[in-house]
């Protein structure tokens, strides 16, 4: 364990932005949910109606589980319990893998291991940081909840329940990190375990097989029942599970070599069939495209099912008023909900598309482009081979997501897919912008693209609450996308053609500039 403290400081240094942001957001989320719940459901009758509607909606049961008590605290815990646990679990997995297996894979661990660092130190340091961060975000949420008039004891239990999912999956990731030599596989394995265990809890709650929930950390996070009986002893189950998983992880780490895995590395074909730049690009983008395709298909279906019960579930005066301001008089709740969710999901699709658009640059930075471009592959051909996926990828994702949502909602796959595809020109505009940056400012392209994207999301959010001026908001390409579900498709043509033209000019400019500049490998 020698050197653990040094490594903890190294982790804190490397994640000095990520950790505080994650902890702050997670700690503030319960407060915002509690205050929103208090504002939307002002009396017990409204809360009871909401709880009853939620309990009869299978999608809500699958996502969040049963409402244990229709009080302010009970509803807050219900709204956030499951998704809070999910976010905590995911971030914990990513962090643990990042500081254990990923370090080994890049060989940095070797550099440290030759110094005075014990063989258990990296795992111990990563676990310490992630477990402590989860504890911290759980406890920091307490003052806000108490400020909303909720009892202290239950609020602490709620915070710890959220933290418990992070703990459990930090331990799961510690285990999978020992199994494979590739960090991507270790990460995928832990996420897959998470997905499976979330599904176990979903089935338990939506199919009425209550005992199944006891098999999943996502079940435990709800079974503590904060604000609805406060079963503290469930936390003991979590602690035992974390202790066992961690012990196994440490035991396994002594039985393997540094950078080696317990599972044999998978071998591939000895000869290749990749034909050229486009074949290579397909191989590089394939798994991300298929994975996100499945993901957005499921997300779409979930949104469709959720919207199904929406009209009854949120039929409060406050909500009807909100709907009327967004969608105009006579708009249906579910259509407004759809429009809003598609808006958010289209930005998620943009994130996936940005990764593809920046892929050419990351190939260049890693030095892999150098190898390919020294062969008879032209710059433009190479750039286009990646750009094609940044343009066609989001089209596929938006279509799949919309079709799945439409099918699950009312069978209108084409209508909803049309509405989601209306966001494609906006997504393309961001892709074009990133491509331009790769041509002009290769070193800063990724940082600037992501920052601008983050700013646009922030501006959209602030505009939603009328906190920024309309002219500022007009800078966001997403604002110019007409809501076809609410306004009809005829309003769509001019702004969409305009955005497409902007995207085309940006992307063409980017490729032209890329052809003229020096290759800039990083370092």
């Amino acid at each position, binding site marked *: 364990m020698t050197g653990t403290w040094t490594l903890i400081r190294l982790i804190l240094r490397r994640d000095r932005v990520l950790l505080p942001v994650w902890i702050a957001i997670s700690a503030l989320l319960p407060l915002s949910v509690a205050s929103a719940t208090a504002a939307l459901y002002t009396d017990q009758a409204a809360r009871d109606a909401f709880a009853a509607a939620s309990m009869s909606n299978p999608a809500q049961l699958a996502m969040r589980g049963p409402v244990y008590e229709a009080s302010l605290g009970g509803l807050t815990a219900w709204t956030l319990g499951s998704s809070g646990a999910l976010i905590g679990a995911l971030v914990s997995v990513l962090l643990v893998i990042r500081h254990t297996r990923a370090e080994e894979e890049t060989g940095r661990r070797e550099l440290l291991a030759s110094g005075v660092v014990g063989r258990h130190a990296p795992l111990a340091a990563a676990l310490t940081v992630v477990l402590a961060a989860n504890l911290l975000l759980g406890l920091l949420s307490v003052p806000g909840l108490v400020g909303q008039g909720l009892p202290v004891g239950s609020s602490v239990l709620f915070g710890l329940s959220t933290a418990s999912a992070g703990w459990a999956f930090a331990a799961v990731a510690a285990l999978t990190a020992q199994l494979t030599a590739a960090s991507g596989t270790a990460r995928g394995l832990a996420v897959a375990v998470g997905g499976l265990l979330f599904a176990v809890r979903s089935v338990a709650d939506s199919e009425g097989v209550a005992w199944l929930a006891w098999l999943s950390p996502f079940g435990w996070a709800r079974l503590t029942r904060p604000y609805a009986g406060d079963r503290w002893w469930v936390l003991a189950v979590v602690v035992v599970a974390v202790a066992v998983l961690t012990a196994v992880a440490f035991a396994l780490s002594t039985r393997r070599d540094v950078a080696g895995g317990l599972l044999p590395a998978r071998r591939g074909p000895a000869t290749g069939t990749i034909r050229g730049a486009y074949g290579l690009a397909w191989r590089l983008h394939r798994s991300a495209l298929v994975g996100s395709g499945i993901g957005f298909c499921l997300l779409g279906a979930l949104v469709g099912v959720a919207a199904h019960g929406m009209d009854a579930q949120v039929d409060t005066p406050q909500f009807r008023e909100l709907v009327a301001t967004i969608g105009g008089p006579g708009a249906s709740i579910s259509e407004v909900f759809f429009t809003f969710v598609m808006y958010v999901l289209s930005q998620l699709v943009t994130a996936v598309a940005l990764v593809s658009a920046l892929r050419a640059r990351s190939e260049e930075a890693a030095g892999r482009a150098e190898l390919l471009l020294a062969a008879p592959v032209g710059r433009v051909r190479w750039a286009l081979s990646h750009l094609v996926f940044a343009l066609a990828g989001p089209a596929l994702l938006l279509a799949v997501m919309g079709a799945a949502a439409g099918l699950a909602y009312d069978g209108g796959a084409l209508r909803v897919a049309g509405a989601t595809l209306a966001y494609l020109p906006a997504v393309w505009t961001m892709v074009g912008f990133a491509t331009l940056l790769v041509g002009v400012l290769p070193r800063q392209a990724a940082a600037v693209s992501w920052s601008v994207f983050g700013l646009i999301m922030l501006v959209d959010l602030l505009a939603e609450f009328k906190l920024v001026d309309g002219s500022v908001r007009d800078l966001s390409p997403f604002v110019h996308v007409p809501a076809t579900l609410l306004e009809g498709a005829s309003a769509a043509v001019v702004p969409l053609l305009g955005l497409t033209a902007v995207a085309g000019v940006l992307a063409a400019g980017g490729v032209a500039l890329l052809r003229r500049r020096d*290759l800039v490998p990083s370092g």
Partner: protein
Amino acid sequence: MNAAVRIEALVKSFGRTRALDGLDLTVRTGEVHGFLGPNGSGKTTTIRILLGQMRADAGRAELLGGDPWRDATELHRRLAYVPGDVTLWPSLTGGEVIDLLGRVRGGLDPRRRDELLERFELDPRKKCRAYSKGNRQKVALVAAFASDVELLVLDEPTSGLDPLMEAVFNECVLREKGDGRTVLLSSHILSEVEALCDRVSIIRAGRTVESGSLTGLRHFTRTSVTAQLTGPTPALAALPGVYDLTVDGTRLRCQVDGDALTAVLGELSKVGVRALTTHPPTLEELFLRHYEGAAR
């Protein structure tokens, strides 16, 4: 004279750093040309300009009779390149990368490919993320040696290979030369260049400081002489062309200019010689002479 590479007064700056400062380089068709210089002297920058990955600020570069920037794609059909720091696609196997690079260059000889895999002891079924630096280098080397091209551009190709594999590499380069191919071999490993190259260009801080055949270069340098004498040491220090003289009892060491050798040997044989070793300067010594200025 037919030249595969002809570079004249090449200049390239990165911000305020002048990476190339009037570099000249000529590689004749069919020769193995050593491109020598310490780290950071501009070897890789020169190669990147030759490969059309960067554009020179000034000067002239000609590759296989074409313009390396304008005709890049066409010229690349006729050459193969091995970078100094090979990075590969982590999710592809070594075999897939070799075949991909071979295919875009217009196909490679499958028999030669398999033979090279065996000689370099490379497992083509491993994913690239699992390869060590040396193995990644072997992937690029196999792809280069197995393709049918006129020119091989190798940038410090043996930096990750063990001595056994270096020997295999040397055999491969000599075989390429035998087949009439041109090789541009950048290196700071002198023994490698000595064993393989017909001619060398030595560069320092972006300038060519010396260029020619190894014999030609040695002509300008001194011979190391070590002698065990039977009598008292003669007063060699007074002779012109003798340097770095050290005397330890009857043992004597010095560096001697080529045209002073006769005189020195005459003095030694007057006293009586028990043992005598002389050797031509290694490139190490050539190098030290050229770069001692830079070290100061």
